[in-house]
C-alpha cells in the first residue's frame, strides 16, 4: 500500500514546476534552484570581499597612512578573508555541487532537499550578522581570520556576533556536506559504480568528508573563545593557566584541511574541463582519485607548518616539514596527469579551457611557493611576510577562483540553454589573468624583501611593488565587470545543444539544455561509455 501511495505522490511530484515569485526561492527544494542561489550569493560575497580588498590596496598604494585608520584597515583584512573563504569560495563550490552532482550521478535531486534549503538560507543570515558588525561599537573583528587569542578577545561588541556567525557558517557547511555524501552514497544510478563517478563528484565526496571532520573542530575552538570571554574559562588565557598556542593548534587542525576543502573541488572542475577540450580521456583517471584521497589524508597531519615560529621540538619541526613536502607528490601526480591529458590532444581554447589552463600553470606557482614555505628554517624568515600573502593568493585566486570561473563558463550553457558571449569570455579571461599576476606576483618580492603582512603602512623601499600590486588589484576588480555583463546577457546567445561542447563525457550532457526542472526522475539504466573504454 505504501508503495502505491508513494507512486501516486511521485506522479504529482513529476507534474509540478517551480513555484511562482519569491516562494520559489524561499522554500526551494530543487537542487538546481538551490545551486543557483548558492552561486548568486557567492558572487555577491565575492564582490563585497573584493571591495574590501580594494580598500586594502588603496591604502597600500603609497607608503604612509592616507585613506583609512589602521584599526579599520585591520577590520578590512579580517572581513575580506572571512567573506572570501566562507562566503565566496566555499559556497561557490557548493553551488556547483548542487547543480551538477545529482545530474552527474543520475539522481533526481539531492538526498535531503529540505535540509539543502536550510543549508543555503543559513548563509545570508550568517553573513548579514558578520557584515553588520562593521557598524557596531569597536567595529568589526580585526584580529585576522585566524581569530587568535588573546588579540581576538579585544574585539568590541562584534565578538559574540563573530562567534555566532562562524557557528552558523559551520552548521551550513556540515549540513551541505552531509547532503552531498548521502546523495553520492545512496542516490547514484544503479550502474554508476564508485570508480565510474565523474572526478568532480569524487573530489566533492572527499571534500565533504573533510568538512565533516574539521568544521566541528572550528566550532569547538570558537565556542571555547566564547566561554573564555563570557563564562570565566581559561582555555586560551595564559593569566588563568590556559594556553593561547593551543588555540593555534586547534585552529590549524581545522585550517589546513580547509585549504584543501577550497582546492579539491577545483581539481575536480579542471579534471572535467581539460579532457573535454583536449578531446582525450583524462590521463590516469584512477590515480587522480587516489591522489585526491592522499591529499585529503595528508591535510590532517601538516597543520603545525603554519606555526613553526611559535616554537616546537626539532622532531616536530621535521615531522611537519616532511609531511608537508609529501603533499607535493600527489599534487604533482595531478598536475602531470592534466598535462598528459593535453599531450597530443586536439585542443581548442574556449573560455573554460583557458581558465583551466591558467589554473594548472598558476596554481602550480602557488604550490611551489608553498613548498618553499614548508622548509622550516626558510619559513622562519618568510613567516607573516608578504611572501605568505603571495603564496595563498596564488592558490586561491588563480587557483580556486579561476576553477570556479572555468566551471561556470563550462556549465553555463547547460544551465541557461544558451551559449554565452565567447569573445567577452576570452576578454574576461585575459584581463583577469594579466591583472591577477600583476597583483600577486610582486608580493613575492615584497615578502622576500621583508615587508610584513597585515600592516597599513610600510617603509619606502616597498613602494614600487606595492603600487604595481594596487594597480593590478583595481584592474582585476574592473575585469569582473565583464563577467557580470556576460552573466546578465547569458540568455541572449545562440541556443546551446544538449551536449554543448564537442562530445563531452558525463550524464549531465545527456539531458536537454537548459536542464529541465526535474532530471532523472527515473534513474538512467544504461550509462554512456567512459571515453577510456571507447579508446580501448
Amino acid at each position, binding site marked *: 500500500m505504501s*508503495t502505491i501511495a*508513494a507512486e501516486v505522490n511521485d506522479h504529482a511530484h513529476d507534474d509540478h514546476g517551480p513555484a511562482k515569485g519569491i516562494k520559489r526561492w524561499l522554500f526551494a527544494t530543487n537542487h538546481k534552484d538551490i545551486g543557483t542561489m548558492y552561486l548568486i550569493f557567492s558572487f555577491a560575497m565575492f564582490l563585497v570581499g573584493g571591495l574590501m580588498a580594494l580598500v586594502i590596496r588603496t591604502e597600500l598604494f603609497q607608503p604612509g597612512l592616507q585613506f583609512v585608520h589602521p584599526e579599520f584597515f585591520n577590520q578590512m583584512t579580517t572581513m575580506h578573508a572571512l567573506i572570501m573563504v566562507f562566503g565566496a569560495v566555499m559556497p561557490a563550490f557548493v553551488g556547483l555541487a548542487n547543480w551538477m552532482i545529482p545530474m552527474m550521478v543520475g539522481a533526481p535531486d539531492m538526498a535531503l532537499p529540505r535540509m539543502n534549503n536550510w543549508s543555503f538560507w543559513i548563509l545570508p543570515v550568517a553573513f548579514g550578522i558578520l557584515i553588520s558588525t562593521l557598524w557596531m561599537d569597536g567595529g568589526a573583528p580585526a584580529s585576522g581570520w585566524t581569530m587568535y587569542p588573546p588579540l581576538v578577545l579585544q574585539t568590541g561588541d562584534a565578538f559574540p556576533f563573530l562567534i555566532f556567525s562562524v557557528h552558523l557558517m559551520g552548521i551550513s557547511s*556540515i549540513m551541505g556536506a552531509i547532503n552531498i*555524501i548521502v546523495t553520492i552514497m*545512496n542516490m547514484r544510478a544503479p550502474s554508476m559504480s564508485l570508480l565510474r563517478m565523474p572526478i568532480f563528484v569524487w573530489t566533492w565526496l572527499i571534500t565533504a568528508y573533510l568538512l565533516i571532520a574539521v568544521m566541528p573542530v572550528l566550532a569547538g*575552538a570558537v565556542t571555547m573563545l566564547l566561554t573564555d570571554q563570557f563564562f570565566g574559562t581559561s582555555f586560551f588565557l595564559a593569566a588563568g593557566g590556559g594556553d593561547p598556542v593551543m588555540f593555534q593548534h586547534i585552529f590549524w587542525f581545522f585550517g589546513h584541511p580547509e585549504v584543501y576543502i577550497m582546492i579539491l573541488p577545483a581539481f575536480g572542475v579542471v579534471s572535467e574541463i581539460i579532457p573535454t577540450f583536449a578531446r582525450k580521456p583524462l590521463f590516469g583517471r584512477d590515480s587522480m582519485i587516489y591522489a585526491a584521497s592522499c591529499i585529503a589524508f595528508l591535510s590532517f597531519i601538516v597543520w603545525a607548518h603554519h606555526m613553526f615560529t611559535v616554537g616546537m621540538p626539532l622532531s616536530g619541526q621535521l615531522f611537519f616539514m616532511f609531511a608537508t613536502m609529501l603533499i607535493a607528490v600527489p599534487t604533482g601526480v595531478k598536475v602531470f596527469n592534466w598535462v598528459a591529458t593535453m599531450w597530443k590532444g586536439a585542443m581548442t581554447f574556449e573560455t573554460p579551457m583557458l581558465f583551466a589552463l591558467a589554473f594548472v600553470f598558476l596554481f602550480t606557482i602557488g604550490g611551489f611557493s608553498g613548498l618553499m614555505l614548508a622548509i622550516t628554517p626558510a619559513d622562519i624568515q618568510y613567516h607573516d611576510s608578504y611572501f605568505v600573502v603571495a603564496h595563498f593568493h596564488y592558490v586561491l585566486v588563480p587557483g580556486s577562483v579561476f576553477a570556479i570561473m572555468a566551471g561556470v563558463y563550462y556549465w553555463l550553457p547547460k544551465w541557461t540553454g544558451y551559449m554565452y558571449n565567447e569573445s567577452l569570455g576570452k576578454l574576461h579571461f585575459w584581463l583577469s589573468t594579466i591583472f591577477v599576476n600583476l597583483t600577486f606576483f610582486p608580493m613575492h618580492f615584497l615578502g622576500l624583501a621583508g615587508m610584513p603582512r597585515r600592516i597599513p603602512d610600510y617603509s619606502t623601499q616597498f613602494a614600487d611593488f606595492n603600487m604595481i600590486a594596487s594597480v593590478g588589484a583595481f584592474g582585476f576588480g574592473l575585469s569582473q565587470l565583464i563577467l557580470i555583463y556576460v552573466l546578465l546577457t547569458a540568455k541572449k546567445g545562440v541556443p546551446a545543444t544538449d551536449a554543448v561542447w564537442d562530445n563531452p563525457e558525463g550524464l549531465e550532457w545527456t539531458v536537454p539544455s537548459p536542464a529541465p526542472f526535474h532530471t532523472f526522475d527515473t534513474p538512467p539504466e544504461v550509462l554512456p561509455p567512459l571515453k577510456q573504454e571507447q579508446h580501448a
Partner: protein
Amino acid sequence: MSVDVSQDDGREDRKVGVRRTALVLAGVALMVYAAFIIASVLRS
C-alpha cells in the same frame, strides 16, 4: 500495511539508507565537536 515487494523499486530501501547515512554523519560531526572541547577541558 505490508509492502508489495514485487512493486517495490528500491525507493523504501533508499530512504532508509539516506536517513541512516545522514544520522551517522551528523553523529560523527557532533562527536568531533565534543571530543575537541573535552580534550581541551582535560588539558587546561
